[in-house]
Each structure stands twice: as C-alpha cells, then as structure tokens.
C-alpha cells in the first residue's frame, strides 16, 4: 500500500488490522420509546382533575449514552366560596437517570483520527493504546458516569372574583432540581493509569467522583385586575401586579484516588489514600439571585375597532450595581381592526384585516451573579513564614458599581389578514430592534484596573427584519383536503457602537477555532459591521511546493509568514443566514392524513473545520479524510484558517413526513385510535460538502462547523394514540 515516493509514508504505518473506530461508537440498536397515560375527570367546570404519567427511554446515536425517565403530573381545579374563589394546584415530578459517559463530539473526532489499521485490542487482550492517548472505545467500556436527577415542582394559584369585572390572583411556585453524578474509573482503566489528581499521578489506583447539585427556584406573583365599560363602547381593562423570583444554586464535589481495589467504586470516597496524601479534591459552591417586578397594564378598545395597550414594568435585579438595581420598561401598542370598518366590509374580500403598531422596551439581566462587587477569591497556595502552605486571596474581577440593565427597544408594525372565507390568511411584520447598554465582559483599561476585562454595559446592536407567513387551503373537499403554510423571514444585524463614555473597543472576536495549530478566532465584529462575519486571510493559491499563498492588503500573493495578522486580514464571509423559509403541507384523504414539511436557510457561509484539520496531509499521523489526498492534495503546508475553507451553506431540507390513520369508534370503551409513522431529516439539498449544513446560526459565533463529526441522524417514529 505504501508508495515509496510519498514523503509522508513513514507517518502512514500499516499496523495490520482494519478497525472502524467511528462505527464502533455508534449504537446500532438505538430505539427510543415514549409511553404516556392520562386520566381526567371531576364534576364539570367547578371541580376537575387530571393525572398523567409517562415513561421515556431515549437512546441517542452514541454508545454509553442514554436517558431513562419517568414522572407524573397531578392537576386539581376547584371553585369554592360560592364560586367566587378558584384554586388550581399542580404537582409534577420527574425521575431521570442518564448515562453521560458517551455521546461527546470529541469521542467521534478521536475515533475518526485513529489509524484505521490499528487493532482494537493488543496481543495481551487489552485495549490497544499508543503513547499518551486514550482509546475512545476502551474509555467507554472501562469507565462509568451516571447522573441521577430529580425535578419536582409545585404551584398553586388562587383567583378571587368577588364581583363581576374584578379579579385578584395570587400565584406561588417552587421548583426543586437535584442532580447526583456518580463517576468511577477503575484501577486498570487507561485514564486511571495515565492521569494525575492534583498533580499526583493516579498510577492505576482508581478515580472516584461524586457531584451533587441542588437548585431551588421560588416564585410569587400577585395581580389585581379590573374590567369595565363606559358609555357602551369604551372598554377598559386594568391590571396591577407584583412578582418575586428567588433562585439559589449550590454544588458539592468530592474526588479521590488511591483505592485498594474496584469494590467501592464511588460509594466509599473516604477509602482512597489520596486523602492521606493531601491530594484528594473537595469543592463546594453557592450563589443566589433575586428578581422582582412591579407592573401595570391598561387596555382600551372602542367598538372592537380601535385597540390600545399600555404597559409599565419596574423591574429590579440583584445582579446590578447598588444604584442601578431597578429599571423602568414601558410599552405601548395600538391596533386598528379594519375589517370592522364599512369601507372594508363593502369590498367583501376580507374576513379579517388588522393593522398593528407597537413600541416597547424590555430589559435583560441574563448575566452571571455578583459582577458588580469586589470579590476576593482564592489565588492558589503559597508558603507562609510558619512553613505552612495556605491559600492566597486577591480580587478576581474588576468591580463595576455602575452595572445596569441591558435594554432592547422594539418597534413593530404588522398586518393580519384573512381572505376568501378563510381560504387564505396570513401575517406580515416589519420590526426594528435596538439593543443598547449591551452587557458583556469587555476590554478595559489595564492599568488602572486589575483585570483586562470589565463586566459592563457597552455598545448598541441593531436588528431589523421582515417576517411573512401565509396559510392557504388549496383543496377543501369532503374526502380530500390540502392545506399549505409558508413562512419566510429575513433580518439584518449591525453592531452600531462598541463604546461607552469610559470604555472603548474597536472590535470583538468570537468563535475560537481551537485544536492543533492555534488558528485563533474565526469571527470578528467591528463597530458598524455585521454580526457573525468571518475575518481572516484570503486564499490566493499555492506555490509549486504546495505552500499556501494568501493576499496581502496590497493585493500581492505571499506565503503565510509574510501575512501580518489584522493588517492583511479582512472580512471573508458571514455565518448568519439572510433568509429563513419553511413550507408545510397537510393533506387528508378520508381517514388518512399526511404532513410534509420542508425547511430552508439561505445566504450564508460555513467554515468547514473538518476540512481545515482532517483535510490536510500535515495532520498525519492522525488519520485524515480522503479529501486530504483528493481535492486538497496540493496542500503541503501548515494548518491554516482562511476563506479556502468557507463554503456556501444554503440548504433546503425535507424535515418531517408523517403519515397517519384515524379510526373513529362508536364504542363506549374506545373513542378514538390513531396510528402514525414519522420520518425526520429525510433529505437535504445543499451545495455544502460537509456533513450537514444545518448548524448553529444564531449568537455571536455562527456558521462554524466544528471538528467533532457528531453523526447526524435520521429518525423514524411509530406511534399509537388511544383515547378511552
């Protein structure tokens, strides 16, 4: 097989076997199931209940990766006090056991990179290992990582309607989430032999870890609502309320090694001698936050023709600086129901025609806790003058007492319409969103600050777009009908500014490429530029020896060492789709029904990192793609990030096809029975040459297809619904 003229031949050693490591990671019998049973009853509208229970077994495509959960929900509703008070209570719980050992993208990357002539086992019957790497199949067979999780929630709502038009409600809820992770790596497992715990080699003495996480969320909300009409046509509805939310999370973790045998696994952490060596690990953590709001809403309508709404929310979050905890967020909207106007009625075309306009401001507090405070944290151990090693303490952040709410102002104008007796209906929306006081960890002055970034409010992002949805009934006959839904949207993003009065940045980088070769960040957003833009070198060809050539800013093609970072870099693509479209068809023939759903994203680029790494011969002796010796065979140079690896990402997918059959029974035992079959992700039409063009396309680092090679799946479901 070896070609003597191939200079890389020494790196392509034939070890004699033929192993498909990737295939060994795939769970061939990955059938999932879901069973649900619901009962309901009661004495009509004044008192009723519903109980449901379910069991679900999910088996994703990877081995050593599954989830089994069961749970139930109980809902009770009752009216009392002469029907003035209604009470509803919900109780729900979920028991969830999951195997988290497998299913990581890194496993598939590792498997794909292994020499395929390598055997799975060596001649002593152990998993074949080389150097300091870990055989992924061996790791999954040797180790254990199981999560036991239980989530419980309870809520109660009282609604009192002492007289018509007036309603007072109080709502309280708690959610309790507990996770218990159990991890063990036996003594003869590869990682137990290879790795260290707190700087001391485990040396084949086992590794056990327990991790407990508890999260509690308490919510309370009370509202007063009053509805009345003046002078027959003037309808008013007013609401005032208060809400409170408190979340507290904590975890505890213990890790030990140095076990005599594998008997205890993670169930007797104290037995390992790394405690005596001072090399076991103990950790714990706790944080909490509060969010409160006072709010009011006023609705007005005149004859159902003119509609107006005003909202004012005053929200407070513990996460902001002492003087900026509260923010005011108003909103107003107006509507004109044109279908009620005589001049529209007279055309006799529209069943519904409504023009809407709204403007509102909302706040965002989705940031980590405690970012406004000076926090002294541990800084590692140092030797004290009494000979004892103790933790040092210093500030881990720059405090920001001015931290405040991020605000999003949105102007929206829309039209709802229905024509031809409901055969065609749709909505059309145009929006402008401006997010200001953007929250983030931004570059700051160092000195005088201690750290190079400050969690602060800097900058403005604009997001403008159009959305159109149409629903039509194409055929509507007794035995046959065909309904179509079309949805399309487009939007434009722009980073308007990245500066505040004190802090200034000219760009932000996102999308760290990682892996061998330190290829840096893929995406850069500058003031005035679009979000999600790829920024880097422009490919100009190869030298006869196969070295990369890139364009300098001057237009000259040079080898990569002559390229100056930034000066010669430029915008080379964008990862956010310009258009999103979908097309859904519902067909019904007698008792059959058929759904066919297409979905597409158009007008964006994908950075194909699988080609950038596995498509370059220099990646040997890690196994490479055929493309390394095919379409990229010319490359005889280092790993590089450039527009050479950008590909058009547009696609249309046949996302869902469901065929069902319904039986109607007149039997008192069974009311209804439905059998259906669903196929998902059946067909993709695209120019993209990677695994799947449907990748992350929102956020700040869109359009990057990583090295992970997690398999994309098609799924088929068979379902039966019975109603008694």
């Amino acid at each position: 097989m070896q070609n003597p003229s191939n200079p890389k031949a020494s790196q392509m050693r034939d070890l004699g076997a033929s192993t498909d490591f990737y295939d060994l990671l795939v769970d061939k019998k990955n059938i999932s199931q879901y069973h649900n049973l619901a009962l309901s009853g009661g004495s009509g509208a004044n008192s009723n209940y519903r109980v449901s229970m379910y069991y679900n077994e999910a088996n994703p495509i990877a081995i050593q990766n599954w989830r089994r959960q069961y749970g139930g929900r109980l809902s009770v509703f009752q009216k009392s006090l002469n029907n003035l008070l209604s009470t509803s209570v919900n109780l729900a719980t979920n028991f969830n056991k999951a195997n988290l050992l497998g299913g990581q993208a890194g496993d598939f990357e590792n498997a794909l990179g292994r020499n395929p002539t390598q055997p799975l086992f060596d001649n002593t019957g152990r998993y074949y290992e080389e150097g300091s790497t870990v055989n992924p199949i061996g790791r999954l067979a040797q180790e254990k990582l199981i999560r036991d999780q239980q989530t419980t929630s309870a809520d109660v709502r009282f609604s009192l309607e002492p007289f018509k038009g007036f309603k007072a409600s109080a709502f309280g809820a708690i959610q309790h989430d507990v996770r218990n992770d159990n991890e063990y790596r036996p003594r003869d497992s590869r990682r137990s032999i290879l790795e260290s715990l707190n700087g001391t080699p485990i040396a084949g003495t086992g590794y056990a870890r327990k991790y407990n996480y508890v999260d509690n969320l308490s919510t309370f909300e009370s509202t007063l609502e009053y509805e009345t009409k003046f002078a027959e046509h003037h309808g008013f509805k007013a609401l005032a309320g208060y809400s409170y939310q408190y979340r507290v999370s904590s975890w505890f973790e213990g890790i030990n090694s140095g076990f005599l045998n594998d008997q205890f696994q993670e169930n007797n952490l104290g037995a390992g001698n790394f405690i005596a060596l001072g090399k076991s690990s103990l950790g714990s953590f706790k944080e909490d936050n509060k969010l409160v709001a006072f709010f009011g809403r006023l609705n007005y309508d005149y004859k159902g023709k003119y509609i107006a709404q005003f909202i004012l929310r005053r929200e407070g979050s513990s996460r902001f600086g002492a003087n900026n905890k509260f923010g005011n967020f108003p909103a107003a909207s107006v509507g004109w129901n044109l279908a009620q106007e005589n001049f529209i009625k007279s055309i006799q075309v529209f069943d519904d025609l409504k023009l809407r306009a709204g403007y509102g401001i909302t706040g965002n507090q989705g940031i980590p806790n405690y970012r406004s405070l000076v926090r002294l944290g541990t800084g590692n151990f140092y030797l004290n003058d009494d000979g004892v090693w103790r933790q040092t303490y210093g500030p881990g952040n720059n405090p920001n007492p001015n931290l405040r709410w991020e605000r999003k102002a949105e102007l929206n104008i829309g039209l709802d319409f229905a024509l031809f007796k409901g055969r065609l209906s749709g909505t059309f929306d145009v929006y402008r969103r401006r997010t200001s006081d953007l929250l983030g960890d931004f570059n700051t002055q160092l000195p005088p600050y201690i750290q190079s970034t400050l969690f602060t409010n800097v900058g403005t992002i604009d997001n403008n777009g159009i959305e159109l949805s149409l629903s039509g009934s194409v055929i509507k006959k007794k035995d046959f009908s065909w309904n179509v839904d079309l949805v399309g949207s487009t939007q434009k993003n722009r980073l308007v500014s990245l500066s505040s009065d004190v802090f200034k940045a000219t760009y932000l980088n996102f999308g760290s490429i990682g892996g061998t070769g330190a290829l840096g960040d893929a995406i850069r957003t500058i003031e005035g530029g679009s979000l999600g833009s790829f920024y880097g070198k422009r490919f100009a060809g190869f030298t006869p020896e196969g070295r990369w050539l890139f364009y300098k800013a001057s237009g000259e093609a040079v080898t990569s060492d002559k390229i100056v970072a930034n000066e010669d870099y430029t915008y080379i693509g964008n990862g956010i789709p310009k258009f999103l479209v979908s097309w859904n068809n519902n067909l019904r023939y007698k008792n059959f029904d058929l759904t066919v759903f297409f979905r597409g994203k158009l007008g964006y680029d994908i950075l194909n990192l699988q080609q950038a790494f596995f498509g370059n011969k220099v990646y040997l002796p890690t196994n490479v793609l055929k493309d390394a010796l095919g379409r990229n065979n010319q490359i005889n140079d280092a790993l590089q990030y450039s527009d050479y690896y950008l590909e058009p990402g547009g696609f249309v997918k046949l996302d869902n096809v469901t065929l069902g059959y319904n039986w109607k029974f007149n039997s008192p035992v069974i009311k209804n029975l439905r059998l259906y079959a669903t196929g998902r992700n059946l067909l993709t039409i695209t120019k993209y040459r990677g695994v799947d063009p449907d990748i992350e396309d929102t956020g700040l680092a869109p359009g990057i297809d990583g090295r992970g090679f997690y398999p994309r799946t098609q799924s088929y479901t068979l379902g039966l619904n019975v109603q008694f």
Partner: protein
Amino acid sequence: MKRSYKGLVFASLLAILSGTNACTNLDETLYNEIDASKFYNNRQEILSAVLRPYTHANAWTAPTGQNGHWRITELSGDQLAWPQKGRHGYDDAQWIRLHGHSWSYTENTVWNPYSLMFTGVGFCNNALGDFSRVDFAKAGVSETDKNAFISELRVFRAYHYMKLMDMYGNIPIVTTVGSPTSPETRPRAEVFAFVEKELKESVDLLPNLEQKYIGRITKAAGYSMLAELYLNAEVWSGTPRWDDCIAACDKIINGQTGGLNGTPVLDADLVSTYNNTNNNSKEILFQLVYDAQATPTRCGWNGDFYHFNQRFIYDGDGNGNNGIVVIPSAYDAFNDKDLRKKEWFLIGPQFYAADPTRPVLGTEEYKDQQLNFVKEIRRASENGTASSMITGEENSGARFNKYRPGRQSEAKYWSNDWSLYRLTEIYYNKAEALMRKNGGQATGEALTLVNTVRKRAFAAADFVPYTTASLTLDEMLAERGREFIFEGKRRTDLIRFGKFTTASWWDHTPSNDPNKNLYPIPQRQLAANPNLKQNPGYPAQ
C-alpha cells in the same frame, strides 16, 4: 352588607400586596468568595493578600505555558525557539514572528505579557490600597511586620514595573486601583526613576533572607533587583550606573542581605540549584516556591517544553506540546567538555526511566519508532536538509533539561522551585560592571568572579580559566548565555550588549531597526485608553 363585603376583600388584598412590597431588598450575598470589607481581620488574612502576586507571578516569570515575560523574551532571542514541527507548532506563525522580530501590535504574544504583568501590579496595588484602611494593631500585626508587608508589596510592584519597562519601555505608572482612569504614558527614564525610588525606599525595611523567607522578597531579592536595574541603567534610563550596580552586588556577596547559611554561597554542582529539592540551594536569592506534595501546583514547564511522550523519559506524568527547543547555534555555543552541555540538555535516543532498555516511541514523524532528539531542526524523515523555523519535526532540537522533575516515586517529585535570582548572576553582574568601567577590559576581580563560577562546569583537568585576553565583552555575553540559558534573561542581555537587533543567528536575520528593542504598546490598550502613546516605529492606533 354588600359594601362591607367588598371592603373586606379590598382590605385583605391590600394586606397581601403590602406584605410583598417588603420584598424589594436586592442586596447580594457572597458565599464562596469574600467581600473585601469583611477581610484582613488577622495576620493570616493580611498575609494571604501579600502573597497573591507571588502565585500570579507563576504565570509570567516562569515557563508555565502562558505568554509571560519569560516566554516572549526567550523566543525572540538567540537561544530558544518554537519551530513548526510538521502539523504542530506553526500556530499562526506567532513563534516565527517572535523569532524574526516581526511581531504585530495586535497579537497576543505582545498583549498577554502586558496584561499579565499589569494584573500583577493590580494585585500589589489592591493589597496596598486595602491595607491603608486596615487597623494592623487590631489585627495583631506588629509595626515591623506591617512595614515589612508594605515594603514587600512595593518592592514586588517595582519588580513588575522593571520587567514591563524592559519589554515596553514607555508605560503608565499607576499605584492605586481604578485611579486615575486613562493614565498617561510616562517615558522610560521616568519609569526607571520610579522603580529606583520604590526599591530604595523599601529594601532596607525587608527582612534578611533566611529559611522561613524562602520564596519571598527579602533584602537579598531587593538588592538583586537593584543590581539588575543598575546593570541595565544605560539602556533603560540613558545613564550608566556601574558603581551602583557593584554596590548592590557587594551587599549580597558580603552577606548583608542574608542567606540560608547566613551568607549565600555557590552551589557545588550543576544540578542542585534546579532539582526537586532545590529549596535547599544556598545559591538562590529569590525563587518562586513550589511543593507538589503539599499543594496541587507545580512549576508547569512541561506544556512549553515536553514531547508528547516525555512522561516516559522521566517516569513522570507530564507531557507537553513539543514546543520550545534549543536553537542549534546556541547548543553549539557550549564546548563539548562543558558539563552544562551534558547536564542541562536532553539529546539523543530516549529510553524509559522505569525500564532503561525500553525505547520511548515517537508519535508523529517517528510514530512507533524510537524517539531520538537531534540538534538540527530539519525534516530528516523526508530527507530535508534545510534548517529553519518551518522545517522541524517531532525530534528536532536539543531539549530543556536544566530543571528536571525527578521520578514519580521520589518524595519531592516535581517540587522544584523556579529561581529568579541566584548568586551566580550577582557575580556575573558585578564582573560585567567592573569590565564596563574598565573600558570593556576584564579586571582581576572580574576574572576571579567569573572563573569561580565557571570552574564548576568543567572537570578539573578540562578547566581553562579566563584571562584578561579571553574574557572580552563578547565572551562575557556568550558566557552569560551558557550559564543562564532557560532562565528568561537572554533578550535583556542581548540588548545591553547591542546585539538584539543587529546580530544574526540561525533562521534570524537582523532588522537593524533599534525600535525593535521595545515591543509595541498592545492595540487593545491603545484602543481603550486615549492617553497612551505608541512606541516609535509602531502603528499609533
């Protein structure tokens, strides 16, 4: 009747609402971090803040895998390089640009040392600022201890500024956290004066070096800094200060700044200054201390230096990124009889420490073949003969072996301290100052100082002492290179001898651009602070 019923409803609802109105307190509580206003209640708490800059210095003064002062200055010099080795080590040409002195003011190799060192300054400033509000007597700390703590922080801060001045020259001087905003660039000579003032005001309030102050800034460390400051005064301030350098060296040599035996002495061999029990070294004047047994931390040089299978060579647990190697001409600068060449480098076929007959295997070009480190940086596996920054392979170059972790079974495995100043440097500094004062000619005392050290590196039969004729300034630079290789001092020496931008070595051609003696002020800070001024020869914005 109906009215009173309504009234009752309103009253009870109001009660519910007003009860909840109390829930508007949004003060935050810290659970696993500390609120500074509740800290510094006793000596241990105060000391924990004094020691914070030391653990941070691990990131920038030692080769622990970050772009600190150590890595960036070594990789732009004539001894160490991080060449591309097949698919590894190209790293977007950042190491090639360091070697070729073509760094850009936007890149991380320029930004990270600035950021790391000024964060260290921040830790010093923060502790000093907090201490001004602490009642030391109430915390049970004596006036002597208080002054020593404050002096220690001021001297350490001056050390940061000295290294910042070494790299970037003209920088802002800030002594309080957060104030002033947008601090202005100060010229290098002013930074020099600030460092000198801070050191001189504080060094004599520091304790003498003794056992319990290992790893701390004592008088020995303070005077070592003064010696370095004055040795480089001509470059840094424009005015030579040879006599001040000699005076600072004499303080240390004469034992006035303490030592583990009262007075520091040269270690007898080439190993005990660097091995895993080097906390016993009588030669080291200031080190970062590590104890891999008592703490989870060790001096993690493996990331920068070690091969992917290097753990087997030492019977240890640390592999690395197969990064930094010795430039062939720097290896050749050692005479074959120089024992430092044997002790401080790893070269040749490699075997398991735990099984000396079993070869350690390669993982890349020499996958499944014995790993055999060679001096040259060539693609021998492809019959390549060129030796350059892009023609390395996995076994290219002699490797770092000055500090060795020892075997896993050893009691102090990988507990090596990282030396920042040792007595040899003081000897060499004084010798050089004497020579410079003497028109570049070695004096008798200079010869004695250098020969005393150099004798250690040769078998008695092989040792040829320097003479006035052989110890030229060029030879002094070469000898400093051999003695301090891997110790993070080479760029500063090359600049002081005028060679950094004018000399050629291996794959480096000189820029002959004196502006390259300074790194640029990083773009990130120019963008954030309008009062910063770029160094000459670099883009202003």
